[in-house]
């Protein structure tokens, strides 16, 4: 069975009755002759925290750029807070907090200047949230952002997004360049902010492990645009890893029931959404030379690699 079809079959939509904050329908995009997606569809319901996960080069940043209207899709449609993404009104943009890859900020401004600059644009501006975060840096307010470390800059940028009090946050690879401490601080503040409720977050990150305690749903994006979306809890409950031995014959390959096979480690592993009983039945029929071993505990990162592969 085709792998894209397998993933499609495993797709579980989050609450169907939730109004989507982001809606992507039959999205197609390409750079020159290289197709990134040909028919991508998913939605992010309001009030959910959704992580977009995928290996390098699958088109995560391209998707963020499409959602924010910095690219015009070749086909299909993206709607953000009910408006076409390439034609967002200023009022809707005011409701979207956008973190650009690399914690992009105006380097020529100081801590105080950048707050003064952004404040008048946002009617719900919450100055105290910004200064609560940047005060922890213990830097003078006239300190230039261009002279900050990546971690310090991330706090300034996150503070600006919080102060904006957006309904939807789109965070493109917030973890880029951050050490474990700054990442944790970033997440702690984000969670505290989300505790206020009614906030939607669409986040991409290379640090899959961070998503474990943050997100409600995960979207796995694969090269070529195959996509799987489901609640994280369901993914963690259903996706399993097992040791195996091959007794002659070729090792198993992804086939619709088997999602991934790892032959690189000390122990050979296979990954599946199937229950152990169903998997054993499937192996006996399709891969008779394979002896299934014990189920192995997995972190979210293990599961991500099991699903998407190591390279």
């Amino acid at each position, binding site marked *: 069975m085709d792998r894209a079809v397998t993933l499609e079959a495993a797709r579980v939509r989050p609450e169907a009755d939730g109004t989507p904050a982001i809606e992507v329908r039959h999205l197609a995009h390409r750079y020159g002759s290289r197709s990134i997606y040909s028919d991508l569809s998913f939605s992010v319901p309001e009030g959910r925290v959704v992580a977009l996960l995928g290996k390098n080069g699958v088109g995560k940043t391209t998707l963020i750029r499409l959602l924010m209207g*910095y690219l015009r899709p070749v086909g299909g449609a993206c709607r953000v807070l009910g408006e076409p993404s390439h034609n967002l009104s*200023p009022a809707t*943009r005011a409701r979207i907090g*956008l973190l650009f890859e*690399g914690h*992009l900020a105006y380097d020529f401004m100081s801590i105080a200047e950048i707050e003064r600059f952004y404040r*008048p*644009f946002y009617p719900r501006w919450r100055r105290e949230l910004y200064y609560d975060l940047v005060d922890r840096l213990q830097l003078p307010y006239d300190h230039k952002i261009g002279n900050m470390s990546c971690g310090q800059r991330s706090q300034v940028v996150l503070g600006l997004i919080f102060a904006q009090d957006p309904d939807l946050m789109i965070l493109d690879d917030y973890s880029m360049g951050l050490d474990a401490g700054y990442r944790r601080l970033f997440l702690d503040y984000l969670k505290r902010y989300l505790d206020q409720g009614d906030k939607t977050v669409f986040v991409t990150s290379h640090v899959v492990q961070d998503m474990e305690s943050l997100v409600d749903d995960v979207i796995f994006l694969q090269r070529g645009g195959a996509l799987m979306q489901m609640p994280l809890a369901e993914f963690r409950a259903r996706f399993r890893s097992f040791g195996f031995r091959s007794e002659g014959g070729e090792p198993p390959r992804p086939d619709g029931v088997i999602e991934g096979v790892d032959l690189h480690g000390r122990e050979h592993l296979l990954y599946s959404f199937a229950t152990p009983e169903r998997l054993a039945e499937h192996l006996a029929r399709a891969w008779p030379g394979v002896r299934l071993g014990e189920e192995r505990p997995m972190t979210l990162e293990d599961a991500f690699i099991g699903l998407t592969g190591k390279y």
Partner: protein
Amino acid sequence: MLRAMFLKEWLKLRWALLGLLLVHVAMLAYLFLSVRHQFQVEHSEMIWYWSFELRRLLYDQVMLLPALTGAVTAVAQFGPEMVGGRFRLSLHLPVRGDLLVWSWVAVGAGVGAVLAVLDAAGLYGIIALFFPREAAASAVLTALPWLLGGWVAYFGTTLVLLEPAMRQRVVYLMLGLAFLGLLYLQRGYQEYDRILPALAALSLLFVPAVILPAHRYRHRS
């Protein structure tokens, strides 16, 4: 909101503006010293003969100053926006993109206008110190194409910096240079008097044109 936009432009421009102001004052001082020096080493009749019979310009040292000012102002304003794709930050602000870009160029053109007025007033004052007022007025009229060159250099550089596509960037560069070349083609007294209104009207097309690269930047496909 407008104050915030001006704040950002001020932060980007302040050091460039200070530098340009010093350069302009220094150039005007140099022009004054140069003309005075000529009067000290030559007879007044000879200078009159050079200036009004041979039609040699005594103040062409400031000819390229407005164009340099325009280019430096545009780089100071739009360089920081384009480095690392920071223009995206501005385009995400809850403001119409066209109004945003026009507010920026209004600030840049305003800065250029202030310096142009300084140049024109300085030139008039310096020439009026040594020649009749008619000659001073003629000097300002002669310098008008150079001042228009500042406008063209500013908008030409702005278009080149904002434009995301290399091909269009080259086209804008060529157009800007060709326009500047036209303004510096003649070097006599008031030789552009009759054509200058038409050239000035043509240069106004730059104002709507700056929206195009911003639009292309926003919706690259």
